[in-house]
């Protein structure tokens, strides 16, 4: 197969990707003319496999799979420098969010599994208490991400923070907790 054919095939998205692509197109990715301001301002390119401007270019070409499976979307810190500097007002940080949402649905590769575990633990704390409770969240996250070893790694820092009164020990319960649970339930149903 010639390289042109391969290229043409890759820009007609596989069935499962069609919906994702339409949704991503709403984010104005077609406005990008590859000026690379996003990449030049990004503080984490040293750890990325696909540069931010290449992420946008891949999406223009319909190469969703490549970017959803990239390291880039998980090492992005959401610092919003790219979004701030884009001359075409593409919300690149939000594109990264959408790609992470797709990645979570499809399954995140092992190298980055700590990130979805962190977000899950964070949100389950919010759902349970109405507010995020740092101490139980940190313990649960350490255990779920790296088991007892993870807890051992964090314990020194955690104890020092407790000693200095930086940790609320007992999570509060608020009347509003139920309202927050309603939000989660309604969204899950959709």
């Amino acid at each position, binding site marked *: 197969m010639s390289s042109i054919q391969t290229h043409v095939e890759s820009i007609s998205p596989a069935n499962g990707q069609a919906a994702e692509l339409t949704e991503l197109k709403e984010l104005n990715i077609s406005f990008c003319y590859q000026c690379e301001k996003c990449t030049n301002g990004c503080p984490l390119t040293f750890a990325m496999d696909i540069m931010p401007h290449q992420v946008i270019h891949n999406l223009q070409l319909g190469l969703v799979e490549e970017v959803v499976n990239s390291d880039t979307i998980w090492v992005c810190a959401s610092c919003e420098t790219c979004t701030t500097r884009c001359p075409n007002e593409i919300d690149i940080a939000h594109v990264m969010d959408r790609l992470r949402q797709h990645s979570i649905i499809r399954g995140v590769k092992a190298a980055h599994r700590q990130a979805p575990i962190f977000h899950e633990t964070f949100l389950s704390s919010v759902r349970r208490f109405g507010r995020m409770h740092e101490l139980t969240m940190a313990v649960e996250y350490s255990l779920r991400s790296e088991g007892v070893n993870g807890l051992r790694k964090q314990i020194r820092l955690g104890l020092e923070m407790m000693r200095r009164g930086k940790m609320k020990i007992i999570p*509060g319960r608020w009347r509003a907790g139920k309202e927050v649970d309603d*939000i989660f339930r309604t969204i899950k149903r959709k």
Partner: protein
Amino acid sequence: MKVSYYPGCSLEGTAREYDESLKAVARNLDVELAELPDWTCCGSSSAHVTSDRLAVSLAARNLILADKAGLDLLVPCAACFQRLKAAEKALKSGVRTAGVKDKYIGSFKIIHPADFIWEKFGEKVIAGKVKKSLEKLNPVCYYGCLITRPPRITDSTNPEDPQSMDEILRSLGAPVKNWSFKTDCCGGNLVLTHTELAKKLIKKIFDMALEAGADSIVVGCPMCHSNLDTRQKEVLQDNGQAYHIPIYYFTELMGLAFGEPGVEKWLNKHLTEAKSLLKQNNLL
């Protein structure tokens, strides 16, 4: 003057000294902080990674509480500030919430305390309250990401070179240093999920502050404070470096300059020792 107050989850725990010092500063400026009754988490960085609708809805519940109070809303945590602003903009453009009963009107302004204090009071009022001038300190002000970015969400007029904390510190007498890293990223929650990457970003901020001749870093965000303060020892050990840079909330230094008695109690909560620099300069 009375404003609504949304402390956010961190200010109940890791950033208690930010909450306490902000309240002390507000008392000094005759600002009454009316905490939103029954506020809940804004969704922070985890909701928008998971679902756009969840992010808007968790924030909207709090914005509706602020609507009922009818006062401008002060939000000291940079992440809460940016998430609430993002929800405000989304709701005004017609994005719908899920599982939230009441309707959002948006009768108030969402504002970060550094901007609030600088815009409402300015140099004269702040300088007029100073009992101990900070003239011997050499701080840099570090804004991080979410106080200013992206400007179409935060309404920041100067996102690449914000000035509110610099101006406040100057009004307290401090010869604030210029530097090019005031809005660079500290890694945020990467410190938990990709620790080694975050530590590289943190190290750069220390190195650049030292290069600017600073003896301290002043922040207005609990995540920035946490990353620079609680991880400083680790970052130095990893790199075989031996300096020491105290990290202050701008409200702690305002409280110090205004002669507030609680300063030591706030600074005792820091993991990077923060009192000796002030003692050397007869400020404590």
